[in-house]
């Protein structure tokens, strides 16, 4: 995978969550993820059509997403319900869209699919291609989340 793709997703994630949820986000060190098991409780997955083709996912711990969505909507949430899942879809949409716009300004032409949302302990994330998956961990005051990207070579 082209490592140039990492930074647009990293900065899109920080920018979208700060702007829409008034939440400070700290990025950790990216790592190679070798299995499909998610690192959290709820995920949004977006297919990306290039070339190169790929996908992005966003996986939140329960505490993290509850705080983010509570901030976004000005309401208090306790559980990962339909409102939270819808918000994960919209966050996935905004982050992939922002990264796609950034990459578009650098000569790449990508289209993104409508996000799908998966939840539950130990749920699997199926990326669109068989290339290695790069995971970027993030932390917030409410908990952690992970962005995964996978693009064919």
């Amino acid at each position, binding site marked *: 995978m082209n490592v140039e793709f990492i930074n647009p997703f990293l900065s899109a994630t920080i920018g979208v969550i700060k702007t829409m949820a008034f939440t400070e986000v700290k990025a950790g060190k990216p790592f190679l993820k070798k299995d499909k098991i998610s690192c959290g409780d709820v995920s949004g997955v977006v297919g990306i059509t290039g070339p190169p083709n790929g996908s992005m996912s966003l996986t939140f711990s329960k505490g993290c997403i509850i705080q983010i969505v509570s901030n*976004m909507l000005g309401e208090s949430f306790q559980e990962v319900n339909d409102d939270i899942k819808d918000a994960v879809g919209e966050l996935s949409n*905004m982050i992939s*869209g922002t990264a796609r716009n950034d990459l578009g300004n650098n000569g790449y032409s990508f289209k993104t699919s409508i996000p799908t949302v998966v939840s539950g302990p130990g749920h699997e994330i199926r990326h669109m291609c068989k290339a290695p998956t790069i995971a970027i961990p993030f932390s917030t005051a409410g908990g952690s989340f992970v962005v995964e990207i996978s693009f064919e070579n």
Partner: protein
Amino acid sequence: MKPEINMGMKVLVVDDFATMRKIVRNILKQIGFTNIVEADDGANALQMIKEDKIDFVVTDWNMPNMTGLDLLKNIRATENAKDTPVLMVTAEGLADNVVDAVKAGVDNYIVKPFTAETVQAKIEQIFAKRSAKA
């Protein structure tokens, strides 16, 4: 100078994600709008526009059934709705997208993510331009 905006006008918020409709609705309420209705895609929005008097449309671009761009084109082609102000709020931020929307007759354009201040400023620009033309 800020334009005078009728806060009782009927505003239609169109987005396939309930979250985004709620965020936009909250911001519109903060600005002072009191009459806000929602649709979850362009096709449903167009039906509402044809059946009811909608004064202002705030729409997403990427939606199932009918995109925001097609909704905009349909509004401009509908006799009793063609002059309705339309604000697009979308993740489509490339220059080509903006050009397509301007060609189709969009009044203003916001790229997600956005702040409440941006939404207010873009709405004020729309109504300032419209009142200058009137």
